[in-house]
């Protein structure tokens, strides 16, 4: 078998692999991108981000419509036996458009694409097996492993994709269930739990953490839980599943260590993701892994094997599209000996729950650990003209600042548009602007961005009362 050589060989065409490939080609290097799936894009496009957000969007439209028709006193009920795919009618169009855009971009940049499964034969050598079983061996001066992740199958949870689903299969469920048990309290669990609850499904979340999305500002998660409960949802925290099974008739039954018993039509297991290392041949080249089983990398995304980089979900958190892209680009730039630019520590978190949540920088609690005096200000969306007009009165923006320097330390938002709105705060933080900049800037009226000004005024007022000076 002859061996072809490339400057870069990249395994996986998700956000991380794509950006690495484009960076390599922009620097004039030859690049082979190996993807085992029939279409490019990875989990983001086909199993995760785009499908879940498409369903969420339809849910929001229905909710808005419901709210308004209720105001007109004609209620729009969600029909019994509603088909899940009818909630995602635009999905194919969205995915097709996105895949076409990505494929064009890769082709335009001259990235060679191989449809097949990549497996290490040696540190520089990859075997590519096509779906029909044909094999070819390629060599790469640099190899970038960007094979992503897949849902974890915890022992004792009999995921059968008929009654107990994981985050990959949940959206291929045929009908909207009456009730759903969600295992987990992380981003994916909370997103699906709130979407299904908004659709009128009776949702029970069970997780070991005292509140869902535990890593977030408490103000936000409190609101999230309240809203979730208002939609009929239930959160069982600080507990674990002791037994989960299909009762053989009409329900999935769960018993927790804490003695709680629940039953539901269906269940979703969203207890984390594991790196796609199976079949990649990682142990063949002695790739070192972290305690949690992710590929271990240094700050330049180098693995323990010279010439082999890893990026994206396969190296573990934050496991976001944005961070994966940035890692892909940085890995390729490092291999090329190019300047990496400043490492971007400041990655915003966008959580597409209902309502939406977004955050950047330090939480209030984290800020108190690092600074002597911390000031916070809040703006309720209901106080904003735009919030009232749009009927988006359920939301809040919170800013966190250092009293001594006036530096903006964090922005935390819950409510529709949060994932967009957060970028204003992010820019202020990145440019080192003082928190008072929100009072001094002129924003459009009426907009949700006004929340920054309102939050600043709240912070200022609070501190005037306490006679503290925010610089």
């Amino acid at each position: 078998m002859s061996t072809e050589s490339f400057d870069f060989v990249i395994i996986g065409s998700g956000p991380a692999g794509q950006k690495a490939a484009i960076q390599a080609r922009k620097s004039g290097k030859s690049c082979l991108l190996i993807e085992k799936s029939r279409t490019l894009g990875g989990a983001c496009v086909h199993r995760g981000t785009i499908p879940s957000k498409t369903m969420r969007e339809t849910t929001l439209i229905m909710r808005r419509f419901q709210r308004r028709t209720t105001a007109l006193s004609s209620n729009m009920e969600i029909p019994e036996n509603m088909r899940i795919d009818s909630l995602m009618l635009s999905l194919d169009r969205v995915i097709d458009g996105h895949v076409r855009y990505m494929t064009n971009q890769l082709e335009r940049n001259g990235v060679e694409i191989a449809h097949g499964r990549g497996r290490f034969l040696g540190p520089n050598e990859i075997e590519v097996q096509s779906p029909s079983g044909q094999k070819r061996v390629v060599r790469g001066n640099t190899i970038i492993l960007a094979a992503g992740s897949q849902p974890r199958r915890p022992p004792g949870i009999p995921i059968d994709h008929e009654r107990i689903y994981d985050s990959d299969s949940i959206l291929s469920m045929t009908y909207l269930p009456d009730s759903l048990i969600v295992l987990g309290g992380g981003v994916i669990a909370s997103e699906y739990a709130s979407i299904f609850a908004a659709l009128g499904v009776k949702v029970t979340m069970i997780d070991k953490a005292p509140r869902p999305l535990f890593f977030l500002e408490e103000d936000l998660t409190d609101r999230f839980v309240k809203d979730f409960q208002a939609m009929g949802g239930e959160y069982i925290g600080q507990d674990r599943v002791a037994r989960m099974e299909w009762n053989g008739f009409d329900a999935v039954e769960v018993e927790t260590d804490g003695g709680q018993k629940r039953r539901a039509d269906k269940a979703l297991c969203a207890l984390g993701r594991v790196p796609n290392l199976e079949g990649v041949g990682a142990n063949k080249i002695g790739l070192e892994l972290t305690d949690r089983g992710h590929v271990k990398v240094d700050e330049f995304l180098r693995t323990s094997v010279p010439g082999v980089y890893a990026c994206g979900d396969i190296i573990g958190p934050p496991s976001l599209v944005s961070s994966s892209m940035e890692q892909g680009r940085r890995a390729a730039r490092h291999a090329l000996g190019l300047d990496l630019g400043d490492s971007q520590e400041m990655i915003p978190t966008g959580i597409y729950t209902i309502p939406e949540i977004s955050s950047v920088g330090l939480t209030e609690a984290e800020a108190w650990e690092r600074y002597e005096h911390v000031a916070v200000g809040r703006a309720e969306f209901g106080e904003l003209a735009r919030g009232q007009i749009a009927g988006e009165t359920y939301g809040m923006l919170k800013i966190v600042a250092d009293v001594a320097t006036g530096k903006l330390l964090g922005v935390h938002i819950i409510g529709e548009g949060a994932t967009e709105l957060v970028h204003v705060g992010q820019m202020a933080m990145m440019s080192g602007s003082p928190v008072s900049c929100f009072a001094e800037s002129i924003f459009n009226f009426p907009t949700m961005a006004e929340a920054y000004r309102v939050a600043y005024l709240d912070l200022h007022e609070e501190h005037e009362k306490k006679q503290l000076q925010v610089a």
Partner: protein
Amino acid sequence: MTAPDSNVTATVRTMLERKIVEGELQMPVLSTVVTQVIELTRSMETSGTELSELIHGDQALAAHLLRVANSPLYLPSVQIVSLQQAISRLGMRVIADLAVALAAKSVAFKVPGHEDEVRYLWRRAAAAGAFAREIGRMRRKSAESALLCGLLQNVGFPILLQTTQEICDELGYEIPKEVAWSLAEEYHATVGARMAGSWGLPDLVVESIYYHHMYAQAPQYGDDARVAILADALAGYLLDDGKSQGAPQSGAEAAQEAQPALSLCQGDLQPGQVGPIPDVDLELVEGAGGDAEANGGRPVGSESGEDVESGADVRRDALKSQPAFGELDLYPDDVDELLSRSDDVRETMELFV
């Protein structure tokens, strides 16, 4: 009866087509009980008592459910004697699937003059249903409807054979079996989909039956159609594999069973080309056993018993090289994994036959 002349097939075809187009095919009707079972099991609010009362109205269905509930697959610790017990052992979903399967079998899979072939067809359908569910699970996609898509993709065959026979009787013609099968093959997807639609089955099932030979053109459920056709190919392999391993079987039985298998494989593996089967006899097929390419890459049945191993390997390789597997992101070792689940498949299959 007069012997067929060269125009006979054309005449029969025209009449058959007319019946299809004008909706004159006698579509098998599901019993009211079964239709209601489908409705009830789809509703999340149905109680076991309600369902068992309903099923009592259909003795055949009730007896079948009891038999299944007592089968080793469900390992009953005590003998299941009541329907209520059976329902709680099997679950709503299985009840619904069994109801449709049993109904389809009794109303659709009965054709005088083609008994053996239709029996084979049904066994293969049952195996395809079981494989379809396994493929669903392997792909981490909902396995809920996969079983029905696999099971019912060829449900149009028997009624077409039956109608062809009736047309011949009416005209006083006699046509060879393989011609009748080739006519049925041409229209079975259309007729099967129409039948499933008339039974109130979900759009996904109807569309995947209609498009199972031309999945690339399916508007919405192409992957489900792929799953169905591949499950059928796997089922063909499994059933034929049993024979090539020397299961006791008379030559006549083998021939009868192979006939529909060949017919089915023809279109299965070449989407969009649902043409009549070529005029092959078993001798020819045996010869082609070593050349998957010449056979359109389809799994080929080896009846000779000679060189069984290499014949099985060739069939396995031909099976694995179906492009639709790759299109579902399933690789050759995934196909091996699916085949390694044959025992589970046989068990599920036994529920339906």
